[in-house]
């Protein structure tokens, strides 16, 4: 049996067929406007190249930037009712207060505050009032809204009232789709609530998109389970993806980093994914991307769910090279997807970073004769500049003085020199489809992030309880119990809080049981 990994990017749809650790086939086709026909073309081509039958496919994992793009472009977003469970606290700033106006308009101004928040130790701030929620539900139904976001103060500590409110709202608003903040993110009300609202606003699109991806797979005659890859490099089934589209927001960079780890066998490394216009730079720890510490901006909205700590620099294969008195400048302007038309080696008239790589004998793309006339001294200065910028980017993502390898993936990897200063550089085979490989190898996880009071139990008991819960979450999501490993375990005593409050975060990851 084989697995297929697919990366539906803005420009290309990549697909790979993997059997165990072997890559049987890899293809790249243009992404179609409807997503599905490009997906089908990639699935058909990759099966032909691998010489496999549809019945041999055990699992398909799809990585997509479709939902991120919907937020960035403010398209396909449903008007959403926001119910914040907080009273009497948290009235000072209303939901979406820090959003860009155009995005807030797309969601509508349907905000309701009710009781039902809890303290850091889980006790109610004020009594929960079911009647209050029913009244809000009736108003939501009257306004004709079907997308609802529910965010309770300290719901990550105790989600009881979020769940009770959701049940009441569902009864009042038949056919509605509800997202609970406790299922989305961590401590930090505004950021978690914003992510919850975006999720609710994307639910209609998620249902349509998931249905069409499944239909595309089915039309190719493939009958296996279909999964989507999520921000943390693990997968979720399509029912989960229909409910939590925001969890795919950062799957692109995550998949390329996971693919890089797989292709090289290096689990502690800096990964530089070099595309046509930019490089994405991030750090692998235990084979997974290091997560961002603070808030992450999505389409102008601060959110706090776990995203890879990846930054971009304006350097890629299509970056335009200019010269001023012999001194080169490279990027951030790029010819982008027009590389094969406008770059010198393809007969165009724009000097690009790719032309430099070809002139330096680093790559064999297009017609090398077309760049033979370049001054070798200038080419060498360009090479030095590219190496300097890549070295600075690698250096910025290091978190310790230990030497660490740099893995180059992505179509623009030809720009990468043999070494970056003291750092070893690895450019694995199949570097151009690292994304799709990362999707194919996605694992399954479970996570707990909660504040415990250590007055009644010990730190060890709290950690053990959190780990038990994370494990059962992972198993419920499809992980094989015997393969589960704790990848993150931290407890942070909370400054200025008596009662020995401590924040515990545990995450376990295991192989997917297919």
């Amino acid at each position, binding site marked *: 049996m084989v697995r297929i990994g697919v990366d539906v990017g803005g420009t290309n749809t990549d697909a790979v067929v993997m059997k165990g650790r072997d890559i049987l086939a890899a293809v790249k086709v243009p992404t179609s406007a409807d997503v599905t026909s490009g997906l089908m073309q990639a699935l058909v081509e990759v099966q032909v190249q691998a010489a496999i039958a549809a019945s041999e496919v055990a699992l398909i994992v799809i990585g997509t930037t479709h939902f991120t793009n919907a937020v960035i472009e403010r398209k396909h977003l449903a008007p959403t009712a926001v119910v914040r469970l907080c009273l009497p606290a948290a009235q000072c700033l209303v939901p979406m207060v820090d959003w860009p106006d155009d995005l807030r308009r797309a969601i509508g101004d349907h905000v309701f505050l009710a009781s039902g928040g809890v303290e*850091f130790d889980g006790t109610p701030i004020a009594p929960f009032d079911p009647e209050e929620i029913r009244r809000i539900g009736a108003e939501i139904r009257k306004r004709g809204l079907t997308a609802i976001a529910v965010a309770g103060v300290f719901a990550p500590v105790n989600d009881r009232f979020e769940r009770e409110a959701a049940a009441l709202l569902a009864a009042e608003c038949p056919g509605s789709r509800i997202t609970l903040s406790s299922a989305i993110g961590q401590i930090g009300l505004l950021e978690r609530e914003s992510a919850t609202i975006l999720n609710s606003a994307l639910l209609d699109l998620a249902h349509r998109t998931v249905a069409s991806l499944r239909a595309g797979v089915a039309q190719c005659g493939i009958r296996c389970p279909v999964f989507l890859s999520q921000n943390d490099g693990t997968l979720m089934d399509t029912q989960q993806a229909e409910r939590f589209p925001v969890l795919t927001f950062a799957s692109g960079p995550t998949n390329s980093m996971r693919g890089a780890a797989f292709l090289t066998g290096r689990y502690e490394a800096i990964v530089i994914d070099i595309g046509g216009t930019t490089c994405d730079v991030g750090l692998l720890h235990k084979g997974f991307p290091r997560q961002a*510490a603070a808030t992450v901006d999505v389409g102008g909205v601060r959110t706090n769910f776990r995203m890879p700590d990846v930054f971009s620099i304006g350097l890629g294969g299509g970056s335009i090279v200019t010269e001023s008195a012999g001194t080169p400048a490279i990027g951030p302007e790029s010819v982008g997807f027009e590389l094969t038309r406008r770059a010198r080696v393809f007969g165009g008239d724009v000097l690009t970073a790719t032309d430099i790589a070809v002139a330096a004998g680093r790559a064999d793309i297009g017609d090398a004769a077309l760049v033979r006339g370049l001054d070798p001294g200038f080419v060498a200065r360009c090479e030095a500049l590219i190496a300097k910028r890549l070295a600075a980017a690698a250096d910025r993502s290091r978190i310790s003085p230990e030497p660490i390898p740099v893995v180059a993936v992505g179509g623009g990897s030809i720009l990468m020199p043999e070494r970056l200063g003291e750092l070893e550089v690895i450019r694995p085979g199949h570097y151009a489809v690292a994304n799709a490989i990362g999707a194919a190898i996605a694992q399954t996880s479970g996570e707990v992030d909660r504040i415990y009071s250590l007055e009644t139990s010990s730190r060890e008991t709290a950690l053990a309880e959190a780990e038990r819960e994370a494990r059962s979450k992972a198993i419920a999501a499809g992980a094989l119990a015997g393969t589960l490993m704790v990848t993150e375990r931290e407890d942070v005593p909370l400054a*200025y809080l*008596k009662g020995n409050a401590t924040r515990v975060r545990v995450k376990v990851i295991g192989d997917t049981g297919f």
Partner: protein
Amino acid sequence: MRYLTETDIEALAIGAAILGTGGGGNPYIGKLRCLQELRRGNPVGLLALDELADDAFVMPIGGIGAPIVGIEKLEEGDEGLRALRALEAYCGRKIDALISAEIGGGNALEPIITAAAAGIPVVDGDGMGRAFPEMQMTTFSIYGHRSTPAALADERGNVVLFQHAVSEGWFERLARSAVVTMGGTAIGAEAPMAGSYVKRAAVPNTVTQAIRLGEVVLRANATHTDPIPLICAAEQGVHLMDAKIVELKRHLQGGFAVGEIALEGIDGHAGGRALVQFQNEFLTFERDGRVEVSVPDLIVILDVDSGRAITTEVLRYGQRVAVLALPCHPLLRTAEALAVVGPQAFGLDGVTFRPLARRQA
């Protein structure tokens, strides 16, 4: 008296984070609330010290508690106003103006929120000129003012009045336990001071200073120029070095984030090495075995490109930073002040405070 604008608030949040010298809490929520008040048409006047009447009644106000609770259980909104009204009722006199106890970090903005609601001005000054980890480390306390009577208010409407504490340390302990019972955060208002005392004991013009700092950074960001020399010029600061963090040790000790940062010079400072110690805030800057700067002077660590403050919780290996020293106000350099906020108050026994400006002169 001039009125604060939205641009002032944006700049103040940036400048307050810089004056936080690594601590002080994030001003983000406070900034959003101030902007909201101004947009609702509740203007806030900024009163210079020399505009303050000698018999004016000036009250320090700010948030107390765990910053992590503050970002989750946001305030109801009128906590500050309730604390203010409680002290007015107890003292039998209207409060004329509010003042921040700590300009560094989130508490630079709290008085503005309550001032907007009460329709009174804020004073252009504060009790630290920076951030410090404990409530009694203010110039108000150092020069003899007692924080009680004080009031604490929570989001439910509870107001606790502390009629009298036998020392500033006792007030801190009593207030902390009330805050925990209230759910981890509260707004605290401390005993009002006479205008004449504020003129003598407050670190002057620090709201303006923070706004100016923020403006310098915003302008540099907008024009893609290097903010660091502009900040130094605006604050008579010293650009100690541009550096990369090559080692970071951090642990919690008695509720404080304590640690040490090793720095290696970059660009024009290549080859240099230095150490910075911190306890919530940065305490010392040491180069070639010699402490060049120490508390209460301000050690400021900024992102080398953007000029934005980097707080101790988000420090990490490999960050490229600019390290600056800004001279603290003379009110923090007297013998009485150094006993409370000098190196020895932080357990740095071998360190002698050598004032920055004097050495640079």
